[in-house]
């Protein structure tokens, strides 16, 4: 018998399908930016884009962690509370006089620890990620108010430096250090997802957990790892938020987990898992940021319009994902 060719369908129809959602998000972003530039003269200033990153750096980092979780087909509702708790603990420890470096290490350990525990609960007791991370969300939020029910200001030198230091060009455009940290997180995450076994296992589990198990992949370790990674990203996000606001407040970032999920989904990651890219998540966060900016520029619109637009977009995107048929199961 000679060599058999059993391809199905033309290759042009198959290859880009995985990339379609990301491309659509990119197109949407360009259109929105185009609208901004055509309506408002100041919008074309490069600093507008930098500001989107400055204002949403922490959101981006948290969304990166969420992307890992959603790629396995899970969800993490605890991220907003963990962000708040990290900021709160930092502010509280700094107030009590601990050195900045020690505070940083402690603050960065809390999130991953909680994530690790939630991952263990989800995997070993076969619990729904929704309910486990909901418990984590209440716990972390409760801890915030347990520490203090009022906002704690941060006056530490390291924190204020990080907050105020500007990296810019001679014409006065600048970004904060937080933006660079966020970029670093994005690059590391993109590398991990495409070039390491951990990353590929994340996709495999999202594609078909039963197969992943029978193929001998370390499902337990990977599943726990993604919640730990999400916890770490939330912790980094919390630190960035405390750089940004120079305080820890018990009720900050309420509902942020939903913004994050929206950004990830608009970025083209499918909620059932197995399909999506970090680059898409970056675009998703930018879409949210540009919507906010547009509404701020308009000035006459209530800021709640941001939510309305995001709601509409989210709905359009999940419909769209269903229509182009990213359903392997």
């Amino acid at each position, binding site marked *: *018998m*000679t*060599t*058999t*060719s*059993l*391809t*199905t*369908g033309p*290759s042009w129809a*198959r*290859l880009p399908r*995985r990339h379609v959602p990301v491309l659509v998000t990119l197109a949407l972003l360009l259109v929105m930016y185009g609208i901004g530039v055509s309506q408002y003269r100041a919008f074309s200033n490069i600093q507008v884009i930098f500001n989107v990153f400055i204002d949403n750096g922490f959101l981006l980092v948290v969304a990166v962690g969420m992307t890992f979780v959603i790629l396995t087909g899970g969800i993490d509702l605890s991220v907003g509370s963990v962000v708040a708790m990290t900021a709160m603990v930092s502010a509280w420890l700094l107030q009590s006089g601990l050195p900045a470096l020690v505070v940083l290490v402690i603050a960065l350990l809390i999130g991953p620890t909680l994530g690790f525990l939630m991952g263990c609960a989800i995997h070993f007791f076969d619990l729904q990620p929704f309910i486990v991370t909901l418990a984590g969300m209440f716990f972390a939020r409760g801890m915030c108010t347990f520490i203090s029910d009022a906002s704690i200001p941060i006056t530490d030198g390291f924190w204020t430096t990080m907050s105020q230091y500007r990296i810019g060009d001679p014409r006065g455009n600048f970004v904060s250090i937080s933006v660079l940290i966020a970029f670093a997180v994005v690059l590391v995450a993109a*590398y991990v997802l*495409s*070039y*390491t*076994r951990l990353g*590929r*296992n994340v*996709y*495999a589990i*999202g*594609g*078909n957990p*039963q*197969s*992943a*198990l*029978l*193929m*001998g*992949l370390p499902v337990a370790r990977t599943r726990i790892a993604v919640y730990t990674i999400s916890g770490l990203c939330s912790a980094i996000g919390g630190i960035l938020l405390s750089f940004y606001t120079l305080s820890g407040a018990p009720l900050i970032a309420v509902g942020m987990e939903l913004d994050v999920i929206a950004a990830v989904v608009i970025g083209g990651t499918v909620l059932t898992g*197995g*399909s999506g890219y970090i680059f898409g998540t970056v675009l998703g966060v930018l879409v949210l940021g540009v919507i906010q900016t547009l509404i701020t520029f308009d000035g006459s619109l209530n800021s709640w319009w941001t939510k309305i637009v995001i709601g509409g977009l989210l709905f359009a995107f999940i419909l769209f994902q269903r229509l182009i048929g990213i359903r*392997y*199961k």
Partner: protein
Amino acid sequence: MTDSRPVLTMTGISKSFPGVRALHNVDFRLFPGEVHALMGENGAGKSTLIKVLTGVYGIDEGTITLGEEQVAFNGPMQASAAGVSTVYQEVNLCPNLSVAENIFIGREPRRFGAVRWGEVRRRARQLLARLDLDIDVTAPVASYSLAVQQMVAIARAIDVQARVLILDEPTSSLDAGEVEQLFRIMRQLRDEGIAILFVTHFLDQVYGMADRITVLRNGTLVGEYPTAELPQLALVEKMIGKELDVLEGIEEHSRRDLAALEGGTPFMEVSQLGRKGAVAPFSLTIHAGEVVGLAGLLGSGRTEVARLFFGADRADRGEVAVSGKPGGLRNPVQAIERGIGFCSENRRAEGIIPDLTVRENMILAMQASRGWLRPIPRRRQDELVEQYIKALSIRPANPDVPVRNLSGGNQQKVLLARWLITEPRLLILDEPTRGIDVGAKAEIQKLVVQLSDGGMAVLFISAELEEVLRLSHKVAVMRDREMVAQLNNDDTVNADRVMQTIASGSQREEADK
């Protein structure tokens, strides 16, 4: 080949699950360079033996020796690292990942921890070339047919210098050409010295491929035989444990008088029913007490016809009349109300609810047709369930076992019972005997005859022509999503003629125009 030493020896293996003794004191040997068929009815313990071997389950008693060493794998990864690889019945690949990645995931070539994608693709192409498969290794696995996916799974299995390759019902969803391709690969691997453990329900395939046969029954070992010394009939007897005259009994029943049935009132008449992209318009009449067989190759539109009959897909043209009353079937609820039952081809995904018990699965359709506000009294449930467990000899005969613990054939019987309880007037059976053993197959065939004798109309779909011809009064032949012929199953009709019809698409008796 039997003069060499066995590569794998399993001795005195026992394994129990809550309520079920799956394996009891089973021995098994496998020699290098042989194809060894593991045979047995559903629930005989074949799958359990394989899962015990590969470490999916632990063993209660017994030892496993691979080469010279005693082993106890803690999972498929460890087993495959030691050279024991498995390709399962339902292809276990990740549909979202590329072909190349599915072959290598978990053991990708890396440099400094980074996956070398170029190398992955190159080696995947190399490996698939060895299997004479020329496909785009960067395309997601989901974009290929089941047969190709099966080959990809085999490529993955043999990459790890496999000494033992386990194929658990690899052919159950392949068509004839694809099976031949698979066999070619199996022969090639066997000649390379790999020991192949082959599980299948197709006796022809066993006699075409296997060097030796081990038979299990009810979790115990019946014996190990060279294929040449075990005639087909003897094998079936050993699997079932009793003389097999059921099949012959059915033969007499078949080819019954169609004229008498057609004189009666038609139960369901469809004319020019069709659905764009699924099946071309066709007309078909089913009378009470009539068995209509639907023959055709995989993907020829058999299932699509069944789904239109049940309202699972909505027809975009044509007319339907049930019991003389016209009116389209818009959804399955309407179909059930009119006395139509549908046993789907895909029992795992569309039929059985694995976590519910046998009893709960059985009463599901009846409860649905009564409405949820009128629960079926427990005593009535018990009566019905007991009756059907007995009638279909479902094993274990315990109504409170979760269905997931039953073997494939017994799950199929539970699904049948679910519809039989509702006493439908037309029962649509889509591949009811696929992936189940000879004994259960004969029981299901016998049941179809009994039901039609009792006045039930049956639409019977099967890839096995013999089976269709044995049971049907009338055979509708599908080809390329078109009903190309309807043949009255009289003496002039045999497998060859149906095959010819499928091949040529001629004899358009009732096809359009």
